[in-house]
């Protein structure tokens, strides 16, 4: 049953200790994200939406509760196994600081594959590069690219390993509205063209309008359950 979902979380709780106080970022969240969908996770800042993304993506471990990527449950995986799972099955696009400054665009895109010791699939990579429109920039370094171009590189990198799901945390937060629209259109197109699953955290209703469905959070809980955007 879980296999119809690319990602599923159950009773997810995440608390932080800050000095003597305990801060609850997630207070028991249940959600399932179906394959081939583009979901926006919305909410004001401090609502727990980034924490939900990080725990669902295996970047951070929940205090309690469970997470499935496909049919793999993450809570019992060692750090190394979890990393390998991220590498093979999850793509990331962060708000900024996505790229290793020392590497060229091509090297950044191929980095997860290299880390996995996998031989890059040339045709797939060429197609990805074509789709994100970075062909002429492959030998450039991140510092020579605009913010929008850097996000395109990050999307290409996320796609390189053909992951089950791409997580994206405010991918357009540092971009102007026209560049942001281009990046969101690109994300939309990978869902439509490849059946890719995308989960995107955003506080911007405009950005959320590119998604199929949205989920609203506040105070570490789901405020309004998954509903089609419209």
């Amino acid at each position, binding site marked *: 049953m879980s296999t119809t979902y690319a990602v599923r979380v159950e009773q997810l709780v995440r608390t*932080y*200790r*800050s000095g003597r106080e305990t*801060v609850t*970022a997630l207070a028991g969240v249940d959600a399932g994200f179906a394959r081939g969908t583009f979901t926006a996770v919305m909410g004001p800042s401090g609502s727990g939406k*980034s*924490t939900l993304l*990080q725990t669902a993506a295996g*970047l*951070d471990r929940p205090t309690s509760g469970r997470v499935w990527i496909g049919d793999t449950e993450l809570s019992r995986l060692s*750090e*190394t196994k979890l*990393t*390998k799972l*991220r*590498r*093979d099955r999850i793509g*990331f696009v*962060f*708000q*900024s*600081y*996505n*790229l*290793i*400054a*020392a*590497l060229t665009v091509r*090297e950044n895109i191929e*980095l*997860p594959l*290299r*880390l*996995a010791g996998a031989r890059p699939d040339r045709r797939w990579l060429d197609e990805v590069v074509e789709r994100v429109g970075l062909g002429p920039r492959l030998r450039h370094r991140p*510092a020579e690219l605009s913010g929008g171009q850097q996000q395109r590189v990050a999307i290409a*990198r996320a796609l390189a390993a053909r992951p089950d799901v791409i997580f994206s*945390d*405010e991918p357009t937060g540092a971009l102007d509205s026209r560049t942001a629209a281009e990046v969101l259109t690109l994300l939309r197109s990978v869902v439509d063209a490849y059946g890719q699953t995308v989960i995107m955290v955003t506080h911007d209703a405009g950005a959320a309008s590119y998604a199929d469905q949205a989920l609203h959070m506040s105070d570490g809980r789901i405020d309004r359950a998954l509903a089609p955007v419209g």
Partner: protein
Amino acid sequence: MTKLALRLLRHRPGSATATLIALTLGVLILMAMGSLVDAGLRHQPAPQRYAAADIVVARTEITFTDKEFDGETTTSRVRLPEPGTVPAALVNQVRAVPGVTAVATIPSTRPGQVEAILVKAGPEVDRATLDRLAASASARTFAASARGRAESSAATTALDLLVQVGASFGGYVVLLVIFVVAGLIGLSVRHRRRDLALLRAIGATPGQVRRMLVAEAGLISGVAVALGLPAGLLATGWLHGELLSRGFVPASVPIGPSPFAALAAALLITLVAMLAVVVAARRATAIRPTEALGEAAVEQSKPGMVRAVVGVVTLTGAFSAGGFAAGTGGMTAITGALGMLYLFVTAVALLAPWINSGAARLLAPILTMFAGTSGYLAAANLRANSRGMATVLTALVLSVGFGGSVWFLQDNLQRATVTQTRDGLLAQQAIAGPADLDEVRNRPGVTAVTGVRHTSVLIKIFDSAEPVSARAITPAGATDTMDLGVVQGDLAALAPDSMAVSELQASSNNWKVGDRPEIWLGDGTPARLRVAAIYTRGLAFGDVILDQRTLAPAPFDEVLIRADAPIPGAVPVDALTSQLATDMATSAWLNKLLVAVMIGYAALAAANAMILAALARSRELATLRLAGTTRRQVGRMVNAEQAALLGVALAIGGVIAAVTLTVVVHALTGSFLPYVPPLGWAAILGGATLLAMTTTILPVRRLLGVPAVKALGSRE
């Protein structure tokens, strides 16, 4: 991973350069020290008096065998400070060995003993039997090029010195390099947290991050070895020239390019870098991938309780180590002081996060008073960044502690020796060489004459023994020519079966007047001597005073004369004291050079750490400026931070230096007030201030020259 490491290195050369410099200099110093040890161990001086023999039977060492608690025995061999002897009865046995064609002996003044048996023999000689015979008398056989080692000569003394100096300072340099390199590599990992977190987020396993860091350290040490070895070769050549011209080694002892030293230096430095990176990588593995996101709440890791406990234990150890370190003399005292210093600095390195945040809290009102908002920000930064600044604090404390203690210790030793000699010599004149004592005593105006021989004895320390400087004197009337500063017993009671010992030796061996400890004379003869007196002026007169009749007869080195009228052939003792001062300055040169090298190394490490720390702040400073802080305010903030850090480092470094110096100087001279030349203080305070200010203010000025918006977008 190696390729990736290389790419990341090329992109971020700052921290790699700092580590590279530290490692390269480490290779250079170790190569030079290793060459000294190698020359000392492997050079075979040409035999002089024993040249005619094919095989020499002689005793050059004393062996101590000790049973450990677990039943295992350990053996340690100590070279005899003077030529040993073998029983004369051995000569006939040696002559009877098959293949021996002729036997001659080098006579000894000790009855029934000979200094060496010189054997003429063909190639068919039964070496095994000869070796066994020699071993029965605690002696050894020396053949071919090894014969020179059997002799006691300027060359063999120089060889011992080379091994001792090279090994002990080499060892301390290794410790220093560990400190410095561990700090720099740790700093470079800390400054790249975001890069490493990003790598972790997109799929680098903790193991891959570790391997990348290790590969990086491997690359840097490879380059360091490639640069350091040729430089070490030059340094060895220079050092050899200096040692030669200052008379530390005779021209017959070659100190040349040593492949063993090169190999040892290369391996040691690579090992140190690897060790440092493995420790740093453990911390890097704890970096969480979420840190790359930079937005969500990140738990600040707190320095652990274990670190605090180990730090406090080390600190306690440092205090108690002081008295122990001082239980030895001269050169050993200096290395002992170094050991104590290292313990103190280790404690500071461990406790640095707490020291920094405590100091920040304490200094916050003062900084705010003097520098307003900038001062307030400075205090906040120091508190928030207490762990990051730990390396900087440690490096500064290391420089100040080193400069303030070991360097001055040498001055103190020299001064105390000269003062003790001046105060302790009651004789007005002296003959520097042998003389007929009765003839001098019968001259008009002479009230007392003492013949003095410089010698050494071996005193048990743990399961080995250590040579200690001694004087053999004619006891009659000695109290009229020398005032040893006797505190217990009576020098007049000195007889062939007794000795007087310095307070330093008495206290470190727990000897009292009337005790009969076993010691070994310079030629290895065991002697159980009653402690007749304990005296204070050990630096001037040696740690042990013997009746010259206890030793085998030998000519005097100097004759002290108390007389009203000038005696022909004698010089005023003032000439003796000033000669002593000159001699000591010469022999101190080597210690001072090596200590200077270590202080320089520590200062360079501090400079590196501060430049790195300053350059890592581009984002932070840009944020401050965008938030409305003026360039002037940022400048003042950095100055205030640096002044606070420097103040803390000077205070702690000063206390460490003072404690180390006082403990060791007190043990050696009995004075609680170490002598510190005023210029020395100025040099240390001024040097540290200059270092701290230039290495931070210049890089920060460069950062402030970049427009803030641009700096914010750039990498950290």
